[in-house]
């Protein structure tokens, strides 16, 4: 630093000096020389250069002499002449080097202890790295827009009796009302993502090719969406891409798949072999980033689109609304204006569409606009059809990561203080030769920082190896940002903090030793801190047992869900998807051919199934006579065929199933819940009406079955006779599932050769409804395992140390007649006591946490005492096994070996 600035100055000085023509050597050059030259050379070199200077000055000119002097100075920039930095007598640097050298030697000498310390640390750090990546990803949702503060989703809000409910989906015509009357809304776009029309999955083909491909990620949107969500286009322009009827935007990956190396704008694709669903590609967009709440590969335009009867009118709420507001817009003003626009322009429409209770609506209903970056984590609790992240999960994982790290730190503290006797003499001697306490503290701190840096390196490697598994578990696609400097800054800062944190107690403890008593050998095996060590072990095992309880409870809950009798039979049911490309004759043919197979017991074609991926349709129902009197209630409306109930093993409790008679098309089968909702003991023959004034007669009652979440009550459900569109469910009689699949695929191949055979199992689809629970179970299990590993590593090292300390005592006991079992008991009892104390603390805590975690749900697992007993036994068992490695070895050892050398 000094020399650099000096060189800059020299340049200026040199110019000045030339003009003045003094007869002495240039002072600056001289000073520069003394800066870098070895002390023992200064005198002779300065002398030589001065002699040279005067000789030159006499023979030639002062100017040349000065120039030459500079030249000579720079020529002394040679390795032999330059002062060595290290040889500078700095005690701090020398001592740091010394500390690290000693730390390294100790690390290498105690291989088992060091491995355990570093291993525990690295596991904790790897867990922390993975979880931080996950948390960072979750918090970064919808933060990639340039105008994130101006992008909102418009939602309904119903506040009554202090309760606020919010949900998406508004009536289609509101778009124009809002656009024309609220100037703050620069753009409004409607989006349909839920199962409706061609949303979700479809078969797609290019117009000139017969081969169909199955694709997911279709949704409808108004052209304005591209501008509101700032979706970048690779081909096409934002104004025109979606502004023709039946145009669509596809993602880059789809463009590369179907139209490699060409601009697909203007090309056409057909959905589900239906010529009415021919779409022209208007543009290609970049793939949605993984941190976008909205995902998909095909945006179909809503422009010029008419859906089923009346569904784009005022009757029905089918659209999610997005908007970009002007920079100066005030959110609550906008919300207020929306309400007044509804009252001015929309109320009449609602009335004409047959909606009742409009007064109530005006009293309690309003609009809430939600910032786009809140959509994913959903703090506003808005009902929509999107997968949400969970702030609770983020908190939980964050806390778990910190706890595991803390466990590792505790291990470090525990092992270091346990080993303190071995270092006590070192401390004593250091103090005798003049070390002060500050120096000793910094020695032990630098030791723990060394450990933490080695562990961070290992932890990073571990995290890298574990990342693919973690991604699968968390359903994410995370990457370690190797190129980001902030990662490394964080790791370095983290290393210092972790090292400092876990080193502070041991360093204070060790540096406190009094040299006189230590060197006399008065200090016994770290007895004075065995109380603290006990506490730390108790802490570790408390955490471990709580995590174990979590894993067990979620496992039991999951088993309960899987084995619950649901009111229908989910096993041995194969679902074939993709029938929407067939006309009804072909579907009948398929059904007929399938029934010919010996393995097939029953076939039903219908889109409404009681598991994930079912179609959704809800309507409001009344008993016909009371249409004008009652508010009515909402029920699911399912269209099924005559084989449906039998195929899925549901049970008719009153009345009869549908039959192939024309009058049944006006018949309805309701579930028990709906009968109760109507307040009817025997509903057979009763006539009911829906909101479109269609009238039906109840012909049967089906036993309640779970078709939504098993954690809630069964909702009202009405089954109507109708034709299915996309899905066939097949009940398989044979146990040879694989053969059955082959045969069914053969039938499919005959009937629909241009389309891949696509199927799933109903029980798998059922399981995937409880993915979240399953994930929680795996996460608990994973972290319970990690914390057991860390805790056991510590316990193992601790027991090994105690055995080593007490080896002579053990030998003498044996000589005096102690049994192996007796010695084992003596050495183990202490730890067992600690684990038992942990159990006493962990059980109520674990119960409380899991009680809160499960919450108020139906079909909740009973947290019986056996679960807690199992958790306790596992912890106890594993800890005893861990300890016994060393204790048994000590107990069976020949006492003579230990005592001989005395």
């Amino acid at each position: 630093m000094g020399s650099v600035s000096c060189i800059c100055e020299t340049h200026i000085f040199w110019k000045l000096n030339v003009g003045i023509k003094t007869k002495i050597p240039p002072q600056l050059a001289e000073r520069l020389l003394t800066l870098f030259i070895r002390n023992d050379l200064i005198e002779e070199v300065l002398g030589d250069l001065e002699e040279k200077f005067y000789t030159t000055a006499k023979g030639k000119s002062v100017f040349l002499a000065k120039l030459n002097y500079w030249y000579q100075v720079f020529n002394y920039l040679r390795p032999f002449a330059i002062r060595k930095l290290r040889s500078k007598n700095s005690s701090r640097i020398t001592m740091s080097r010394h500390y690290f050298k000693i730390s390294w030697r100790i690390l290498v000498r105690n291989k088992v202890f060091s491995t355990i310390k570093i291993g525990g640390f690295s596991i904790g750090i790897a867990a922390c790295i993975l979880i931080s990546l996950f948390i960072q990803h979750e918090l970064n949702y919808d933060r990639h827009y340039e105008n994130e503060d101006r992008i909102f989703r418009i939602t309904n809000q119903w506040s009554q009796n202090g309760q606020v409910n919010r949900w998406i989906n508004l009536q289609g015509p509101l778009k124009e009302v809002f656009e024309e009357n609220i100037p703050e809304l620069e753009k409004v776009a409607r989006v349909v993502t839920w199962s409706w029309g061609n949303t979700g999955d479809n078969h797609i083909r290019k117009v000139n090719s017969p081969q169909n491909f199955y694709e997911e990620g279709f949704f409808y949107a108004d052209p304005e969406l591209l501008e509101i969500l700032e979706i970048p286009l690779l081909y096409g322009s934002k104004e025109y891409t979606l502004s023709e009827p039946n145009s669509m935007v596809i993602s880059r990956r789809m463009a590369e798949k179907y139209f490699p190396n060409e601009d697909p704008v203007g090309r056409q694709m057909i959905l589900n072999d239906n010529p009415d669903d021919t779409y022209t590609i208007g543009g290609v967009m970049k793939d949605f980033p993984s941190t976008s709440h909205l995902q998909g590969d095909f945006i179909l335009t809503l422009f010029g689109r008419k859906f089923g009867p009346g569904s784009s009118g005022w009757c029905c709420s089918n659209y999610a609304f997005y908007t970009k507001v002007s920079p100066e817009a005030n959110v609550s003003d906008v919300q207020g204006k929306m309400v007044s626009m509804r009252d001015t322009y929309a109320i009449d429409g609602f009335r004409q569409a047959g909606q009742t209770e409009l007064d109530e609506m005006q009293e309690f209903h309003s609009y809430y606009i939600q910032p786009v970056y809140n959509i994913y984590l959903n703090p506003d609790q808005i009902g929509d059809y999107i997968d949400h992240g969970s702030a609770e999960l983020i908190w939980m994982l964050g806390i778990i990561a910190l706890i595991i790290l803390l466990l590792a730190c505790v291990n470090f503290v525990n092992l270091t203080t346990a080993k303190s006797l071995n270092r006590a003499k070192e401390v004593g001697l250091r103090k005798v030769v003049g070390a002060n306490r500050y120096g000793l503290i910094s020695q032990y701190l630098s030791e723990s920082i060394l450990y933490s840096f080695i562990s961070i390196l290992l932890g990073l490697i571990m995290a890298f190896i574990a990342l693919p598994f973690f991604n699968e578990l968390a359903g994410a696609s995370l990457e370690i940002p190797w190129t980001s400097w902030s990662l490394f800054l964080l790791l370095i800062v983290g290393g210092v903090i972790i090292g400092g944190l876990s080193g502070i107690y041991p360093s204070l403890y060790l540096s406190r030793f009094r040299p006189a008593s230590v060197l006399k050998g008065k200090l016994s095996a770290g007895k004075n801190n065995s109380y603290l060590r006990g506490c730390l072990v108790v802490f570790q095992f408390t955490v471990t047992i709580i995590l174990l309880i979590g894993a067990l409870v979620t496992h039991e809950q999951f088993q309960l869900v899987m084995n619950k009798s649901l009111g229908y039979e989910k096993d041995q049911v194969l679902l074939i998807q993709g029938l929407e490309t067939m006309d009804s004759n072909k579907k009948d043919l398929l059904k007929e051919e399938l029934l010919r197979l010996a393995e097939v017991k029953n076939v039903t074609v219908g889109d409404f199934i009681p598991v994930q991926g079912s179609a959704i349709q809800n309507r409001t129902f009344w008993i016909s006579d009371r249409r004008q009197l009652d508010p009515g209630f909402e029920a699911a409306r399912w269209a099924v065929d005559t084989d449906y109930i039998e195929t899925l093993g549901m049970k008719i409790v009153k009345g009869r199933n549908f039959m192939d008679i024309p009058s049944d098309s006006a018949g309805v089968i309701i579930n028990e819940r709906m009968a109760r909702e109507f307040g009817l003991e025997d509903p057979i023959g009763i006539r009911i009406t829906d909101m479109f004034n269609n009238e039906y007669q109840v012909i049967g009652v089906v036993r309640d079955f779970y078709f939504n979440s098993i954690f809630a009550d069964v909702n009202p459900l009405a089954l109507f006779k109708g034709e299915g569109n996309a899905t066939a469910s097949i009940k398989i009689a044979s146990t040879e599932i694989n053969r059955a699949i082959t045969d069914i695929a053969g039938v499919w191949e005959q009937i629909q050769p241009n389309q891949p055979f696509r199927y799933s199992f109903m029980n798998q689809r059922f399981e995937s409804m409880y993915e979240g629970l399953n994930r929680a179970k795996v996460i608990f299990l994973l972290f319970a395992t990690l914390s057991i590993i860390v805790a056991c590593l510590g316990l193992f090292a601790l027991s090994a140390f105690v055995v080593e300390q007490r080896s002579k005592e053990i030998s003498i006991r044996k000589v005096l007649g102690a049994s192996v079992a007796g010695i084992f008991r003596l050495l183990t009892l202490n730890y067992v006591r600690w684990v038992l104390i942990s159990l006493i603390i962990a059980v109520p805590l674990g119960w409380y946490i899991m009680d809160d975690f499960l919450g108020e749900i139906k079909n909740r697992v009973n947290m019986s005492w056996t679960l807690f007993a199992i958790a306790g036994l596992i912890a106890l068992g594993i800890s005893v096994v861990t300890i016994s490695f060393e204790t048994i070895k000590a107990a069976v050892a020949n006492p003579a070996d230990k005592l001989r050398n005395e």
Partner: protein
Amino acid sequence: MKETRLGEFEEVILLLVGILGEQAYAFKIAEEFESQTKRVVSIGAVHSTLSRLGDKGFLTSEMGESTAERGGRRKRIYTITASGERTLRDARDFKISLWDQYPAFARLTFSGN
């Protein structure tokens, strides 16, 4: 053991130390080198070589008297050691034996005599 062979520059410097005797210090040696060879050299380069020759054991040095034109600073006087002299002689003998083996020059040498 350090390298004991001599480079050309080293050999010249070593010889100059011998020639200059009591006056063999870095500045004088550099001056002498320039006047004898008509080649420019920096004191630093000479000094570096002197210190290397010292490491090899061919030279010893001690601080000598101080003079006014040095600003009262002492100079470091170099002296050839026995091993230095031996190495010089070996270098000369080796070269002469090479000269002798080259017929054209060998004849020349004889005729010169």
